[in-house]
């Protein structure tokens, strides 16, 4: 008997049951786990210490701390977050603060309401975890997390202790499964109003890898060791050759003698109008991983694109007004001409020829001598490439460190470097000879995933090359190709496997090209495309697929309403059936028995008892006597003898269902 009495929540015993505290601990654990790699170490330590103490306190009936302890503790927790993160907003700091608050709340859980608040805070923590982590396993964790949290809510909102974990999990699991169709409907049809409504907080500790606004010697080397995916590309039709895959990113025109930087983005002339749309081209779709910067990547030279709010800047760079904070998908078309259009003003020419005074003097004199020996600009540039190719220049991921006069040091001393070194040196030599030039950073090549038929471009594919102004257009020169042609022909893997680059992790590379990895990548891409990338456009596509030609918000709301009415109606009907059916299984079976018996002779009179009725029918239908006696006798015993046993009742119901008496006695047939 659980007649033990518990009064309402104000008078409830201060502690709540140990079982309920264990469920709160489970809820906190589920909420804190995905944050572990990101939050400061002291936060989980504090959480486990407080949870452990709280459990002991409940077990040994220690008194809970008074406000004199709790308030200073909470304040120091707040101060701790502030000191660690220098803010209390943002995903990292916010999550840490929520955790500290939930933990402090645990120290004053007296009633059902306090316990529910802890679970509510855990819902928020789970939510904030997904702002950070959206990998393929995340939805599984979402489901498990919600299951644990609502089970905890079920347990802690009880007034007299917990039920068995299996019982509670079964109940909340059923709740969750029944909620899934409705949740799916919401997901598909709930109108998505594109944000952001408030500025997105910084991502805090999670620095994103990728290209940056500047490049000093060795920067790209760091990227070259990163397997992180920069973007995925799906070509319409055949992909261009690997040596044509120059993915254009930041254009760096400002040189301070060592570091290359982007010029402040100026005006946006309609440069695409200068392009003659002819020659080989490629049409493709890019899914760009978020990198926190404003540029988009595109195959050189983009001519059309559908990315939202994207324009071509003066140095022919595809940029967007808002930084790319989410995975973004866009389509584009590019000409594979190796040239980009531009407008060369006097000011622009000066800027693109500028070399800081007094830097790299030996390179300058080398350039002037070589230019004097060449017939024209093109001949001079070819001579520079020949120099890289024929003299002992080496391609290396671990080049020697360069001094202050970095280009001089590279050209005359170390003579080994990565794409950045060569691009930088080439542009300096071009400018020194009076040819406007700039460094282009981006990616080169990529890897085909044959399972998903898309190309994967990783940070390791980062590359730098040069553009020079010749014959009123920008012409691509890739000095790295002169030193390590395999880098361009075969991509990064080719360059590394041919042994020209030291320090690469062979095993890791090999794993990345296995079928298993390819399947995983294909799955991830599908997940990104169909689930994470689901948005207003996908909703329109969905509506179009159902035959609506011009989808609008009205259709979404209508679809949502119809779907909800259908689902809730279905649930209501099922619910009603359950209500009818479960009322009294024994009575239901007895009613059925009487209906079937009534067909053989006459219905049961209202005041007639089961035995009476059976005897009466048996006198008229002696052929049914045994069956009637068994069935009606069984009912009488079940109804009036002792406690009702569900197993016996269902056996009786089955027997009734099998009972199909003939309408007439067998001998009456003629």
């Amino acid at each position, binding site marked *: 008997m659980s007649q033990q009495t518990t009064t309402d929540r104000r008078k409830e015993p201060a502690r709540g049951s140990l079982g309920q505290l264990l469920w709160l601990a489970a809820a906190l654990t589920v909420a804190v786990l995905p944050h572990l790699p990101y939050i400061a170490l002291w936060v989980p330590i504090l959480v486990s210490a407080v949870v452990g103490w709280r459990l002991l306190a409940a077990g040994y009936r220690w008194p809970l701390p008074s406000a004199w302890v709790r308030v200073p503790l909470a304040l120091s927790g707040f101060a701790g977050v502030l000191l660690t993160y220098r803010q209390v907003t943002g995903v990292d700091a916010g999550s840490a603060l929520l955790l500290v608050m939930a933990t402090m709340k645990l120290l004053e859980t007296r009633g059902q309401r306090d316990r529910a608040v802890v679970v509510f805070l855990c819902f*928020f923590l789970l939510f904030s975890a*997904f702002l950070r982590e959206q990998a393929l396993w995340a939805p599984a964790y979402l489901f498990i997390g919600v299951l644990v949290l609502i089970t905890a809510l079920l347990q802690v909102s009880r007034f007299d202790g917990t039920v068995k974990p299996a019982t509670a999990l079964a109940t909340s699991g059923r709740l969750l499964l029944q909620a899934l169709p409705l949740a799916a409907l919401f997901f598909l049809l709930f109108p998505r109003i594109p944000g952001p409504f408030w500025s997105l907080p910084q991502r805090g500790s999670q620095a994103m890898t990728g290209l940056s606004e500047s490049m000093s010697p060795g920067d790209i080397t760091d990227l070259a060791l990163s397997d992180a995916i920069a973007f995925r590309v799906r070509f319409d039709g055949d992909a261009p050759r690997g040596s044509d895959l120059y993915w254009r990113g930041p254009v760096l025109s400002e040189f301070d003698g060592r570091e290359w930087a982007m010029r402040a983005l100026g005006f946006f002339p309609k440069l695409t109008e200068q392009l003659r749309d002819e020659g080989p081209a490629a049409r493709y779709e890019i899914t760009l991983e978020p990198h926190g910067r404003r540029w988009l990547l595109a195959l050189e030279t983009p001519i059309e694109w559908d990315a939202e709010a994207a324009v071509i800047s003066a140095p022919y760079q595809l940029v967007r007004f808002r930084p790319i904070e989410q995975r973004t998908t866009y389509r584009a078309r590019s000409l594979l001409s190796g040239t980009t259009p531009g407008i060369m003003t006097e000011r622009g020419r000066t800027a693109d020829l500028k070399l800081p005074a007094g830097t790299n003097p030996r390179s300058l004199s080398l350039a002037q001598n070589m230019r004097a020996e060449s017939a024209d600009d093109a001949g001079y540039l070819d001579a520079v490439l020949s120099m890289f190719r024929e003299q002992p220049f080496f391609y290396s991921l671990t080049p020697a460190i360069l001094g202050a006069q970095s280009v001089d040091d590279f050209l005359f001393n170390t003579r080994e470097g990565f794409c950045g070194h060569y691009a930088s040196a080439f542009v300096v030599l071009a400018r020194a000879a009076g040819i406007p030039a700039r460094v282009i950073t981006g990616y080169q090549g990529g890897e085909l995933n044959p399972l998903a038929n898309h190309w994967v471009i990783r940070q390791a594919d980062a590359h730098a090359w040069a553009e020079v102004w010749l014959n009123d257009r920008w012409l691509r020169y890739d000095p790295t190709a002169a030193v390590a042609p395999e880098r361009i022909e075969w991509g990064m893997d080719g360059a590394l496997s041919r042994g020209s680059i030291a320090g690469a992790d062979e095993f890791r590379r090999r794993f990345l090209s296995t079928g298993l990895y390819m399947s995983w990548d294909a799955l991830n891409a599908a997940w990104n495309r169909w689930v994470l990338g689901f948005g207003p456009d996908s909703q329109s596509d969905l509506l179009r697929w159902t035959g609506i030609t011009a989808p609008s918000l009205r259709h979404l709301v209508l679809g949502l309403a119809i779907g909800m009415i259908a689902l809730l109606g279905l649930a209501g009907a099922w*619910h009603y059936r*359950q209500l009818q059916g479960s009322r009294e299984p024994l009575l239901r079976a007895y009613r059925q028995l009487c209906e079937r018996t009534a067909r053989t002779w006459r219905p049961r009179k209202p005041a007639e008892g089961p035995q009476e009725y059976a005897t009466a029918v048996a006198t008229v239908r002696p052929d049914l006597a045994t069956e009637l006696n068994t069935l009606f006798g069984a009912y009488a015993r079940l109804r009036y003898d002792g406690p009702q046993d569900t197993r016996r009742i269902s056996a009786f119901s089955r027997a009734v269902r099998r009972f199909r008496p003939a309408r007439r006695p067998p001998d009456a047939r003629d």
Partner: protein
Amino acid sequence: MMAAGLANITAGFGRALRSWAQRRQGIDPLEVELHTRRIYILPTRAGLVFALITFVMLLGAMNYNNNLGFALTFLLAAVAIVSINHCHYNLAGLRVAAMGAEPVFVGDKFQFQFALHNARDARRWQIRLNWDGQGEAKYVDVPATSQKILALSLVAEQRGLQRAPRLRVSTRFPLGLLQSWAWLNVELTGLAYPRPAERALGAAAGSLTQAGANTSGEDDYAGMRQWRPGDSPRRIAWKAFARTGQRLVNEYSGAGAPVWIDWSSEPDRNTEQRIAKLARRVLNAETSGREFGLRIPGVEVAPAQGPGQRHRCLQALALVGASASAAA
């Protein structure tokens, strides 16, 4: 100010809802099956907080354009919506049978018993029972196809018949976000005996024998006889019972003549004090094991002994001054 205003509005709404429910339900029989028509459901305060959380999450998901955030938000919203059904279903079809309460003295607590019968093949969780708007609440889980008995206490405020307030059967299953409830307007009455005067009033105890018609003897032991139904257990000779296995009763001389407890023999002018003293004498008489009768204006209880007689006499005293219909 705001909070007070809100509380007023809520209270007003509650009153209107109650009187509306009362009008459409009328008086209920002692055993009621909670039909869906009489079950109401509203979100609890925790439910409102949950709705707010879901809304904030929706804004967050929109702001970050985060589809997993949307998924979590929509899943939680759907769970809350589905739990409406579960909350309602947990109560629907439950049979509540009121079983009444034993009489108690004024100032003590009635224990009104209720049987909760679950015919369904599934557990009913956290059924809460309380007097509408007052008193403590009791909780119980009723397992599949079984019944549980709960007792709600109620302070006996004055002697006589006391009508129990309206009963409220509710549940917050499954997540505490919603509460479904039903009101039961059962005509439940408890009988409150008058509070007896303190035992210290020795004079009253002494006057017992004087007031009785037979004052000749004290309790002189007169031997044993066979037990008869109606004999007080206090008079059983337990030692003899242990020895012989026979239930024998000690007999006292003078115990044969009934003691009359008479209204007019009590000098107190104040009716309530007089009733209290008479009640004390009823208790004393019952303890002594003699036959006793009661004479009060309009009622005469014939002499007898045992708990039944005690009840008859105390009931008569409880109903002094009550209308004839209540006494019947």
